[in-house]
């Protein structure tokens, strides 16, 4: 998740203080991992430098949280470009697991067990997310659903690969 562009997106709603922006971010996207104030202020400073936002003046009392920021036209364009540019599907976990599976087979180790261990871990996380959905508001239900659907896709890959281990091993050893 791109924190800078997400913050810029929130700023496009209305001018905001860094303090309020951080809390908006945490409310919508921070489940399990709140954004650090330091990261918010350094991101805001970078966006001012890049002319994506501008400070609306400083209230007395100093401190970075006394500044209110508003998005510029360039910032608004940046947000729209971000919104409608598709992301490259992430395959990081699968790549790691794929590498482990191949190495295990090359080493004549128990690739079945490796996939089973990962499978149990996935199921355990799915249970946790399913529990978190009970009595949660829709925003958090959808965050959990996003995780659940992704884990489910990983599990399908695990089952699919599990069913082809003998053939994969043969191919790897004959290569």
């Amino acid at each position, binding site marked *: 998740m791109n924190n800078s562009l997400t913050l810029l997106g929130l700023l496009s709603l209305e001018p905001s203080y860094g303090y309020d922006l951080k809390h908006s971010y945490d409310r919508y996207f921070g489940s399990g991992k709140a954004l650090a104030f330091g990261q918010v202020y350094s991101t805001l400073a970078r966006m001012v430098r890049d002319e994506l936002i501008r400070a609306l003046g400083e209230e007395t009392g100093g401190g970075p949280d006394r500044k209110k920021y508003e998005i510029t036209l360039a910032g608004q364009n940046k947000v729209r470009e971000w919104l409608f540019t598709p992301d490259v599907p992430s395959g990081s976990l699968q790549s790691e697991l794929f590498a482990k599976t191949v190495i295990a087979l090359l080493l004549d180790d128990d690739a*079945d067990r490796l*996939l*089973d261990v990962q*499978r*149990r871990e*996935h*199921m355990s996380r*799915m*249970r946790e*997310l*399913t529990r978190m959905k*009970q009595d949660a508001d829709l925003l958090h239900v959808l965050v959990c659903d996003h995780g*659940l*659907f992704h*884990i*489910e896709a990983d*599990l399908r890959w695990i*089952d699919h690969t*599990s*069913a*082809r*281990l*003998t*053939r994969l091993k043969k191919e790897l050893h004959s290569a």
Partner: protein
Amino acid sequence: MSTLRNVDIILSARSLRHSFGQTEALRGIDLDIKAGEVLAIMGPSGSGKSTLLHCLAGVLTPDAGTVTYRPADGQPLVISSLSESNRSRLRLTDFGFVFQFGQLLPELSAADNVSLPLLLSGTKRREALHKSTELLDRLGLQGLGAKLPGELSGGQAQRVAVARALVTSPAVLFADEPTGALDSLASENVLTLMLELVREAGTTVVLITHDARTAAYSDREVVVRDGVVGTGYRVTA
């Protein structure tokens, strides 16, 4: 196999084997199910998971091995040795069933479908209807008791099937792909309501599914593959 104490176990299978002709569906299953737990039995198509459910519930008599049921207020029963009529009685009084396609009687209203198991076990019609309506309400089907199954959505019909399975307050609910024919939102709705009711009542649930998101509602899962219980699919090809 788990190492639960006998006192906690409501159902146990030992060395269960069953074949259909030359095909061995179960090849020596050992399984303990704890009272009040929601157990998911997972596995690919043809792995033997539905056959296992049918043997556990006394629908099928295994070729070999035993299934023992320990009711909370009675002596252990070896289901696999009971006569057909005793197994039928046990299924009516102690077990509830939900299948992928609700198997509701199309000519009966939702309330009558739900009342049926109570009427069959001797409950008076007025009391049966009262209890059915109460349960339909709990499942979010207020005012739909008079509808025929054909007039209900898939999710609503499946909730009627859940009500029918739970109306006798069974000790064990057997659910075979209960949401397999529903879209993900309807499936979630049925599972959430069903699990809320069974957890409240302390009902044990044996849930057959190939779907990981459904299994995530359980307390524990076992995987059946090639007729044995394993921890993963491990089907090699």
